[in-house]
């Protein structure tokens, strides 16, 4: 095979692989949107109606409890996790941390990232049992925060690392304090940090395994921090395995909502990143 034939073959393979991925994605999103959309259009109220007392058996009411559960668990978890992630990443970049320590922490974070989320769920569950508590919104938040932490830290760390040293040097040269300099450096890294924030949030919204054991698979509205709750992915699992065909159809509606949220977040991260990238060194104003 001559070199141009080889080049054509590789090009073809790459395009085929891309097409396959796009096709699978189109089918998944398309089917979810079509079937979920049909259910939702027929009765949009199910997304904002609290479940009835026998919702899983009779499909009375809707799944507002999981919508709220998702918001109440993933929202606070993202805030906590982001604060920890930014602090960790800033520390790893700073003059306080040695190169070897940073490398070690990064390896550790990669391991955490690769750990299946069900392991976090079980881990937090053992804590729940050890302290003699029961599954609740609070432990759901803890589990999701632990799950998001390595994702957000790695994104933030990468972003800060890619911000040029020269910016730091330039601000110090002007007489900036460490903090003042960090603020400007962070600005250069903002697209990456925002991407990390949104990716972490999206992953948190979409994960079932972590909340399965920790938040409680509740079928009622969340009533307090230490009361059981549930999130959309767990609800979808429960709905999809229900005996009642109408409940199963609600699983498509819930999936629709979930996919729209995740797609929306990813789109938002793209737009925001582009918006901030205008100011980044090397960026061009459009």
């Amino acid at each position, binding site marked *: 095979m001559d070199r141009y034939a080889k080049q054509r073959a590789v090009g073809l393979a790459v395009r085929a692989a891309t097409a396959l991925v796009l096709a699978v994605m189109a089918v998944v999103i398309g089917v979810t949107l079509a079937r979920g959309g049909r259910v939702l259009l027929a009765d949009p109220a199910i997304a904002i109606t609290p479940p009835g007392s026998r919702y899983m058996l009779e499909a009375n009411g809707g799944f507002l409890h999981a919508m709220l559960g998702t918001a109440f668990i993933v929202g606070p978890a993202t805030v906590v996790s982001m604060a920890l992630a930014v602090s960790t990443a800033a520390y790893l970049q700073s*003059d306080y941390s*040695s*190169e070897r320590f940073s490398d070690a922490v990064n390896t550790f974070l990669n391991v955490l990232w690769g750990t299946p989320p069900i392991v976090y769920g079980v881990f937090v569950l053992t804590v729940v049992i050890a302290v003699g508590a029961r599954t609740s919104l609070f432990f759901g938040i803890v589990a999701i925060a632990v799950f998001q932490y390595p994702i957000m830290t790695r994104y933030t760390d990468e972003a800060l690392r890619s*911000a*040029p040293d*020269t*910016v*730091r*040097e*330039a*601000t*110090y*040269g*002007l*007489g*900036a*304090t460490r903090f*003042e300099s960090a603020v*400007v450096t962070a*600005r*250069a890294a*903002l697209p990456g940090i925002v991407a990390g924030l949104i990716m972490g949030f999206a992953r948190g919204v979409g994960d079932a395994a972590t909340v399965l054991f920790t938040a409680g698979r509740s079928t009622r509205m969340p009533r307090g921090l230490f009361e059981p709750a549930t999130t959309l992915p767990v609800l979808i699992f429960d709905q999809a395995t229900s005996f009642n065909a109408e409940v199963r159809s609600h699983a498509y509606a819930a999936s629709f909502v979930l996919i729209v949220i995740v797609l929306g977040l990813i789109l938002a991260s793209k737009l925001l990143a582009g918006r901030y990238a*205008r*100011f*980044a*060194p*090397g*960026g*061009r*104003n459009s």
Partner: protein
Amino acid sequence: MTDTVLEAENLAVTYTGDRRVEAVKGIDLSVPANRLTAVIGPSGCGKSTFLKALDRLHDIQPGVEVSGEVYLRGDPVYGTDEPAPELRRRIGYVPQEPTALPLSIYENVAYGLRIHGIHESKQDLDDRVEQYLRQVDLWDEVDDRLDTPAAGLSTGQIQRLCLARSLAVEPDVLLCDEVTSALDPISAENVEETLAALAEEYTIVMVTHSMNQAKRLADEVVFLYLGEVVEANGVRSFFEDPQHERTKRFVSGPAEDEYVVSDAD
């Protein structure tokens, strides 16, 4: 005898990474007020390291040891209780690489003024930003797009913006690290013209590896080789009557091509 703005005494810098490298070996130097002092020498002779040591910029870098003394108008720069940011404000530093802060053009110049509180009102801030942008001949090129990202400027414009930004905090001395080496010949010429104009009212220490640039701009020349001062003299005597053998060789011809990078003439 003109008065001295910046003085280095036995200043030495050692990198303590995988192996110890003494990049700057005990340099004594006086920088006279309102003159342009050029520090020249081949690449890797310790020029930039020396310049950063004058501004305590090695503080922020791990694995660097600095010894010796630096005095800024008689005040010690090292081993003092005065916070380093205050000292660095008084010593302007323009890095080799044209670096726009990830802010708008306006905010790039206003940045130093803001962090040090050097303005009384919004109007005053506006005026100062304009004043310093004019001083580096950038105002007319950017006055209609001050709010756009500085990263959108050309590298030559960014380098002049860096000068404006450094001047805005009213330093006693301006350190310029090969500020034209990353630029194309035309931008380099613009920046050089700006430097020449600034040299009339500021004290500038300029690192360069270009002899011709030193010849064109400098009042005083310091020749560094392998971390040591070989010769320091007024620009005329330095080039017309070099005292040391090594200086003679350096002055008499571009033996190594890096001596002449970025020189059009």
